[in-house]
């Protein structure tokens, strides 16, 4: 009897301990992959980079037609001009991003020195400000031009977000993003997971809900609804507004941490921005 009690106690303690320990990023990524593979058994892994069009055959047809004359092309051209035009002080983006312009796959990453998740738009503005230029707005306007150019040049690069183990704050930022993803918010009480995991493949009115794997590969995006190219954080804001949650700050800590978590789940997928969407 005593032996049984002891074993049960040990099991209980083990259970309690495992409940408090969070799954690792790799375990998260594997869980996402498993879930979506079960939901969409016929979709090859690399196709997830096409978002909803990986699972929406009619939408895909329309999208492929649009891609014949991509609406984001003028933005790429404008972005190239921005990249190649020196700042007032004579320097340029190439001086900040020496490997550029094919650098989109290096973001987001953990910046140990600044102690934050560094995203490409944030890095662009830090480059501008370091060279006496005014920062760009993060949702609309010319940030989308330069992001379009960089995204286009970066096509084919592979998503590879790393959580460095020499700085516990990096994992903490990832876990903040993860918590955001699974937290219900807004008057309508949805979490990101409600739509993009639980009900992915199903429709809200006529719109098919896309899976989260592949969410980050194709930004910035020309969205027909916007009539222009917009950023990932603009889309975060829009999604939050749709569920009646007040949007947080574009390129603020919460959305950058969310981007860190989200992009990790797309590790292994090739970048294919800029994208075109409804």
């Amino acid at each position, binding site marked *: 009897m005593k032996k049984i009690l002891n074993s049960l106690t040990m099991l209980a303690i083990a259970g309690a301990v495992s409940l408090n320990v969070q799954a690792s990023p790799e375990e998260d990524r594997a869980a996402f992959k498993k879930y979506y593979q079960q939901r969409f058994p016929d979709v090859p892994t690399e196709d997830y980079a096409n978002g909803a069009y990986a699972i929406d055959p009619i939408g895909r047809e329309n999208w492929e037609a649009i891609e014949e004359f991509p609406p984001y092309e003028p933005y790429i051209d404008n972005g190239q001009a921005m990249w190649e035009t020196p700042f007032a002080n004579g320097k340029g983006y190439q001086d900040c991003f020496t490997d550029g312009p094919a650098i989109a796959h290096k973001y987001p990453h953990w910046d140990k020195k600044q102690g934050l998740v560094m995203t490409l738009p944030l890095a662009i503005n830090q480059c501008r400000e370091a060279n006496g230029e005014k920062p760009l707005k993060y949702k609309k306007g010319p940030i989308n031009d330069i992001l379009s150019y960089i995204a286009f040049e970066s096509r084919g690069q592979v998503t590879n977000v790393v959580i460095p183990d020499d700085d516990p704050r990096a994992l903490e930022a990832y876990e903040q993003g993860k918590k955001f993803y699974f937290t219900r918010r807004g008057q309508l009480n949805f979490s990101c997971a409600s739509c993009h995991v639980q009900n992915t493949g199903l*429709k809200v009115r006529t719109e098919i809900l896309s899976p989260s794997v592949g969410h980050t590969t194709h930004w910035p995006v020309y969205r027909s609804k916007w009539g222009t190219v917009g950023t990932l954080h603009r889309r975060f804001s829009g999604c939050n507004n749709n569920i009646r949650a007040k949007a947080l700050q574009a390129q603020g800590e919460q959305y950058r941490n969310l981007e860190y978590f989200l992009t990790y789940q797309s590790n292994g997928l090739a970048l294919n921005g800029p994208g075109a969407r409804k």
Partner: protein
Amino acid sequence: MNKSNKSLAAMAGMLTLLAGQLLTTPASAAEGASVIEEGKAVAFGRSKGNCLACHMIEGGESPGNIGPPLIAMKARYPDKAKLRAQIWDATIINPDSAMVPFGRNRVLSEAEIDVLVEYIWSL
């Protein structure tokens, strides 16, 4: 309660019921129809119930399919109160429910939920 009290109580109950019937019967037919119409407006209103976002409803266009189609509701919810509770806060029964808690989060007022329930239950 002794026997005579019990029968008194029963009579009182019956009289109240009869009185209630008398008071509501004449207008109830027309009232009933207008309540259903009001409920339908709440159901279909995009800034109200917006039920079509997730549910197929007869007569509604381009419904979503996140939730089950709203048909045979009396069979599925013989107890109307349970239907009301589901609309009010579906997470009570299923903490992971994707359904908007229309009552708890004040998306709809109690009066709107009342008429909505009448409409949905009639489907």
